């Protein structure tokens, strides 16, 4: 029983998308913390 | 003069042959540094080789690594040809695999002698064993999540 090609494809694409979302989220959080002066 | 040349010709030819032969013989036989009989339950291993210490490796030498399903190499496949001293194999199904390596002069493509043969036996863990460990892992993981979740709920309630 093998992993299918679509699954393989999905796994990789989803990871890259999730990472991109992570970058954006991190930036949003940074600017929010900067604005409220709650960086540290 | 002609007679002399005729006499010399075979000698010349012989010398040429001897020189050629010497050249070929100069190609040293690589020696596997891994065990000659590999047993694995995970389907991956590294094959590596080197020259005996007396040999000074030359730039135009490379290696040819062959694999076969039987020890006679009646049917073989060239796995690798190049200058590296190792290769890594993985994802192999159950079975016996045989490997041998030799030196090749890159310019003339003359090969040296074959190394000793490596025999690799791949026999994966039994699926039942693997699945039972998987099951134990799943239970332990679920319990861990349970401990943390339940603990946190209790903490929220007491506050």
């Amino acid at each position, binding site marked *: 029983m093998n992993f299918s090609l679509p699954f393989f494809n999905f796994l990789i694409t989803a990871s890259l998308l999730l990472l991109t979302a992570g970058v954006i989220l991190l930036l949003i959080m940074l600017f929010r913390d900067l604005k409220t002066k709650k960086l540290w | 003069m002609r007679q002399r040349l005729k006499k010399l010709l075979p000698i010349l030819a012989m010398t040429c042959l001897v020189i050629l032969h010497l050249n070929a013989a100069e190609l040293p036989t690589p020696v596997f540094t891994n065990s000659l009989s590999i047993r694995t339950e995970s389907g991956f291993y590294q094959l590596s080789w080197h020259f005996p210490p007396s040999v000074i490796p030359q730039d135009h030498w490379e290696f040819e690594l062959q694999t076969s399903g039987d020890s006679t190499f009646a049917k073989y496949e060239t796995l690798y040809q190049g200058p590296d001293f190792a290769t890594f194999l993985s*994802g192999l199904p159950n079975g016996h695999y045989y490997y041998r390596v030799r030196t090749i002069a890159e310019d003339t493509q003359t090969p040296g002698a074959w190394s000793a043969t490596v025999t690799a036996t791949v026999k994966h*863990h039994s699926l039942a064993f693997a699945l039972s460990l998987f099951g134990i892992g799943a239970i332990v*993981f679920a319990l861990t999540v349970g401990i943390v979740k339940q603990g946190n709920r209790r903490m929220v309630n007491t506050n």
Partner: protein
Amino acid sequence: MTHFQSEILNPVTGWILLLILSIAWIALGIYWGKKAKDMDGYMLAGRNVGLAFGTATAMATWVTSNTTMLAPQFALQLGIWGMVAYSTAAFGLFLFAPLAKRIKRLMPKGFTSGDFIRLRYGKKVWYIFLIISIFYGFTWLISMGMAGGILMNALSGIPYRLGMTVILSVCMIYTIFGGLYAVIGTDFIQSMIIMIGVVIVGGAVLYSIDLDTVYQDVLKDKPMLLNMLLPASIMAIFNNLLFGIGEVFHSNVWWSRAFAMREGIGKKAYTIAGFMWLPVPIAAGFIALTSSSLGINITSPDMVGPLMAGNILGKVGAIIVFVVLFSSLASSIDSLLAATADLIVEDIFKKIFFPAIQEKQLRNVSVYVIVGLTFLAWLVCMPRIGTLATVLFFAGPMVASTIYPIAMGLYWKNASKEGAFWAMIIGSGAGLIAYFQIGWYTASLISATLSIIVTATFARWKPAEFNWLKLDESRQA
């Protein structure tokens, strides 16, 4: 040994990159370090770290050289399940998230994970815990020092010893100057570099090769890698997950961050960090599977990631890989230096030998300990014994045995010191036996299983009755 293919970047480029990054980290470390006025500032960044920095530091620290080097290796050895198995280490962060909240609540003025074990279970358990924890921290440090040297060497031909020395000393310098402020501040930048770098490399590889071909070639050459029922991989899944949980639950690297984050931040930060980390092993790992299609000979599995990225993307790819790896190494080495030094200073130096020591002196001791740790790690890294990195896997069963003494100890009044003691001894012992008898991919699993049974059994039949208030030392003073 000439195991490796010729390097992808020339040494001059390598040195320039190394120089730029080193200067940047040190300058930032010194700049941020000025914020550290007292020991709370130096060790715990003022206990007021916000969500952005909190998330980034958890994420960046969890991305180590191992994530970027070992994930491709897992993919190459254990296939698709291997990548997924590596990803499950994110559960260490997910499950630590609620713990972080609990820790901050119970010990608002705590410093280290050792503090917790000592107050919760007493001295005998604490000694064993310190041995496990320091052994783990130190082997982790060594494995990264060596990885740094090997990578610099393989990517750009910088001699192993020089590269290793530079990366260890750069991290040491900025950690000394800036304490946890420097560590967390640089972690933010490093986590951005890591994520963007992995997306670029992964995306570019995806763009330049045909996934369909890759799939077919793997199916032909390494069929078991695509098999859903590859036994070693099936075992590796929960093993790796539990290894990850053990690493995070016990290690002071994570506890000090829990103490450092502002009230109400820890749980969120660790959860988001888990989601950011989850895709990294897959995005970095799948590249290893392209080796068959491109006909590239892999000599050694731990170099497959950087090698493939360099081969597919050329010089630009190699530069990105270099920067990403340097960042992931630095973000973990600095954290490890800071947290292990804290553990030694707070738990051993202060609590065992000099309880009356002044805060100012303590900070000086901290500096000596960081320098000493770095020097020791450097000494062990010098001979480049490749197999030493595998010592880190030894730590797997040891840290997995601490999971339940920690988790139950934080939530259950009846978890007892005998339970914790025997859980660590029996768990570690059995795990190490499994390591040699069955394979490394079962060691943490066996250890955690025994640890949960032992801790729970003692809690049930020889219960303790712990008073939670005892954990807050500031209250007693």
